[in-house]
C-alpha cells in the first residue's frame, strides 16, 4: 500500500488532496427501528482478520505521512446505515457481502434479534449501522 500511496502522490497536483474513506471493524450495531422506537438488537462481532485489516490500513497511511508524502488535516467518523425487512434478509446479505469468515452475529445476538423482531411494530425495519472513517490528507511537495 505504501507504494500505491507513492503513486497517488505522483498523480496528484501540488495542492492535491487524498481522501481515505473506509468502514471500520468496530462491531456494527443492529437495531430495530420504527416510528415509535429504536431498540438495540445486537452487534456484529469483529473477527481478528477485520482488526488486522484496520490496523494495516492505519499503518499504511501513517507511514505515508511519516515519509512526508502527505500531511493529515482532519478526520471524522459517521454511520453508514443499511436497512433490511427481516432478520433473514440481513443475515443473508451479511454472508454474501462479507463472506462466511467475516464479522458475524453471535447465537445469543441472533436469538435476541429474532425475538425482538417477532414483537416489533408493523412499520419496523432492521438497521445495521456500519461505523465509517473518513480522513483528509494534503499532498506535500516531493
Amino acid at each position, binding site marked *: 500500500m505504501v507504494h500505491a500511496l507513492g*503513486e497517488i502522490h505522483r498523480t496528484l497536483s501540488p495542492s492535491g488532496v487524498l481522501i481515505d*474513506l473506509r468502514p471500520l471493524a468496530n462491531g456494527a450495531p443492529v437495531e430495530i427501528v420504527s416510528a415509535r422506537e429504536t431498540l438495540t438488537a445486537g452487534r456484529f462481532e469483529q473477527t481478528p482478520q477485520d482488526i488486522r485489516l484496520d490496523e494495516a490500513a492505519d499503518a499504511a497511511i501513517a507511514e505515508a505521512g511519516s515519509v512526508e508524502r502527505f500531511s493529515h488535516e482532519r478526520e*471524522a467518523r459517521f454511520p*453508514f446505515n443499511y*436497512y433490511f*425487512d427481516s432478520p433473514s434478509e440481513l443475515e443473508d446479505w451479511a454472508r454474501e457481502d462479507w463472506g462466511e469468515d467475516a464479522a458475524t452475529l453471535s447465537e445469543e445476538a441472533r436469538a435476541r434479534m429474532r425475538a425482538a423482531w417477532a414483537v416489533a411494530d408493523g412499520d419496523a425495519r432492521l438497521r445495521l449501522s456500519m461505523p465509517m472513517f473518513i480522513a483528509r490528507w494534503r499532498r506535500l511537495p516531493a
Partner: protein
Amino acid sequence: MTIQRDPEGNELKQLRQMVEISGRRVLEIGSGDGRLTWKYAGLAREVVALELERDDLLIARVECPVALRRQVVFIRGDSIHLPFRGAAFDVALLSWSL
C-alpha cells in the same frame, strides 16, 4: 421493500464536508460498481474511476447514468501502477479500498 444503503446520505455529506469536489479532477480508487461515484460525479469536472474487479467494472459501465458518461471514465487496474501522468488529479479518493 429492498435493502436500502445509506438513505440518509451520510457518506456524501461527509465527503463533501471533507473536500471540495466541484470543478475538480477526481481519481477514485476502488470504485466498485459505481455506487458512490454516481453520487458525486455530477459535481466534478471529471472522474477517473479505477477498479480491479472485472464484474464490478462491468456493472459500473452498464449502469453509468447517461448524464455522467462524458464526465466519468472507468478503468480496470489497481493503485500500484497508476496509468496517468503526474499531477493529473486534484483529489484522490480511496473508496473503501485502503
